[in-house]
């Protein structure tokens, strides 16, 4: 019986491909746009995720994200170290600076000063060189996306830069997720970063904290806030702050929301129209089936099978399209680190199911009302 339904469905190839295309297209639209949306706003948290060993970030109470931070006096580090439950704490400097390249061009960069002794604050992996190069004089490590912007078509290793009248030599490339603005990032030791960044009174942007018990990071951050009067955020909280900052300060959520809604509407329109047309065309067949004694329940199951086939095929092709898209752009530095969160295909699956349920239910209403006599009309 199900097989008959499937034959019925694929009997008219045009309509069948129309249905599959409709589902595939809206799946593609919803999945791909949601993926880009999530990845774009997660760029706001890349600064946090690039530091792989800190459980808690401590900052001035007015600091909001990794890039919107107000510096603290240097004794804040010792204050944090004095809080029970803090296993270790290291200084972390983040500042904007202007760099003069060999050609004389001026480029805005983010300077990140990592702890001198332990190099905590560097990204986990390196593309070229090792973190130890920072022990050589005046060395900096550039991030890989910054490389493509600042040194297109050449290796940055050994290049000299001028930062705040100081010499800096690029000696390594870090594998980091770029920030929202894709600023070039230069990693160096904390003490050297102080020289690279024009002097202000306080320099310490963050204190990175390792918790004795990483599972208790939330409680630790609260204790740090209570005992030092500074603001402490766990890694996840601070990542969320970065995402929130982008949501609040850009039009991205609205833009992408509109596209996702369009995908849904296009899906409903194409699939709904085609599906109900298809059902209406086959109303005689359904009538015939009813005439030979097929129950409404069986017919309902047949329509569900038809919807299921269309759904699975369309959805599979749509997801395949998204993957092809992400995969083919993965080499592009703009899309560096883009990934498909596992929730998004489930969301689009739910959307597809909703579209099919809605249109199937509308179409079924006619079928169920059909008299067996319809076959003679």
């Amino acid at each position, binding site marked *: 019986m199900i097989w008959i339904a499937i034959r019925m469905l694929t009997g008219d190839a045009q309509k069948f491909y129309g249905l599959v295309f409709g589902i595939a297209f809206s799946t593609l639209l919803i999945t791909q746009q949601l993926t880009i949306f999530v990845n774009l706003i997660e760029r706001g948290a890349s600064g946090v995720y690039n530091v792989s060993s800190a459980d808690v970030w401590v900052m001035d109470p007015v600091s909001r994200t990794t890039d919107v931070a107000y510096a603290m006096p240097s004794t804040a580090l010792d204050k944090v170290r*004095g809080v029970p439950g803090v296993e270790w704490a290291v200084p972390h400097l983040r500042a904007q600076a202007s760099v003069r390249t060999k050609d004389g061009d001026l480029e805005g960069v983010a300077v990140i000063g990592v702890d001198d002794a332990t190099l905590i604050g560097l990204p986990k992996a390196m593309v070229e060189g090792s973190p130890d190069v920072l022990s050589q004089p005046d060395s900096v490590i550039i991030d890989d996306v910054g490389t493509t912007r600042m040194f297109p078509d050449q290796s940055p290793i050994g290049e000299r830069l001028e930062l705040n009248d100081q010499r800096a030599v690029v000696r390594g490339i870090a594998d980091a997720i770029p920030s929202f603005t894709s600023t070039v990032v230069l990693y160096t030791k904390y003490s050297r970063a102080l020289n690279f960044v024009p002097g202000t009174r306080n320099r310490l942007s963050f204190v990175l904290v390792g918790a004795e018990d990483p599972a208790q990071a939330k409680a630790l951050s609260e204790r740090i806030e209570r005992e030092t009067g500074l603001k402490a955020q766990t890694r996840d909280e601070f990542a969320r702050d970065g995402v929130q900052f982008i949501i609040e300060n850009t039009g991205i959520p609205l833009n992408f929301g509109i596209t996702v809604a369009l995908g849904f509407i296009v899906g409903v329109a194409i699939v709904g129209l085609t599906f109900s047309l298809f059902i209406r065309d086959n109303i005689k067949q359904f009538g015939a089936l009813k005439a030979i004694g097929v129950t409404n329940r069986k017919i309902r199951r047949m329509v569900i099978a038809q919807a299921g086939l269309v759904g699975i095929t369309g959805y599979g092709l749509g997801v395949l399209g998204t*993957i092809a898209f992400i995969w083919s752009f993965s080499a592009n530095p703009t899309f560096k680190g883009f990934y498909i969160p596992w929730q998004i295909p489930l969301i689009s699956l739910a959307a597809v199911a909703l579209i099919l349920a809605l249109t199937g239910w509308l179409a079924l209403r006619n079928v169920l009302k059909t008299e067996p006599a319809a076959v003679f009309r």
Partner: protein
Amino acid sequence: MAFNLRNLSFSRQILPVIAIVALLLAAIFIVSGLPDRTLSEPERDPPRAPEELADAPRVAGSGVVEPSSELIQIGSALSGLITGLYVQPGDRVTQGQLLFTVDDRAARAGLREAEAAIGEARAAIAEAQTARSTALRQLDLYRGVDDPAAVSRSEVIRAEGEASAAGERLSLARARLEAAQARAASARTEIGRLSIRAPIAGEILAVNIRKGEYVSTMGGGGSQPFIEMGQTQPLFVRIDIDEEQAARLKLGAPATVSPRGASDRQVQARFVRAEPLVVPKRSLTNSAAERVDVRVLQVLYALPDANSEEERLFRVGQQVDAYIPAVKAR
């Protein structure tokens, strides 16, 4: 329904299979593409609180290693060329040991001059004494004559005058001797001042002068001290504690100290004293123009002695991280 190639339909069979394969591929792609956001342990050990302070109230501070005598910057009382340099960095010296000498030719010439003057004065004394004894005997002779007609009155007056003049000449010569002796002593002092000696027993930490250089009493070139020394047995560390934390500090308790870059090698340092003066934080930021608004309490701790040169963990001027027990918050 037997499988039949002729019945194989693209839309009924191949397409759904493609779709299912695509879904499987997608699942693999998505799972393998998820970003690695797990927390990792730092590769190098950051300074950690010692075991016994891990969950106890504590205060952390950073500081600098210094000699227990504090750093002594040896100066020179007189300016001149350096003619001899007798120590090098790392030498242990005793109190009063010669460190370097400044050109003393002028002072020695002065000394020889004064010594010559002493000889001259001694000769003058001898000459004056002879003259005086001659004059006194002459006078005695005249006074011994009873017959007033034998010696004229004027002869007697002249003899008396000669005797007293000879006495004056003698005291003048004696005064000259004293002056010359004083000059010699002052020249010797000068020579002594041109040899610079160690004020205390200790270790030479830096030598910024070389033989033949000119040292001026106004300080060396770039106002570097000539020689820096200090008592390095034991070494002290000067820990800066934020004034807000100072009240919590348990004074008298030993501190756990580790040098920068070797945080796994922690040592116990004995409490020495807290400086009575709270000073503005001298940030160890290497920046030339340091502007401050944080004040710190400086607390001194004595580091344990190293057993051998190889085991020497702390050196003067090194930065350290310290953990100190705190009193329980009320």
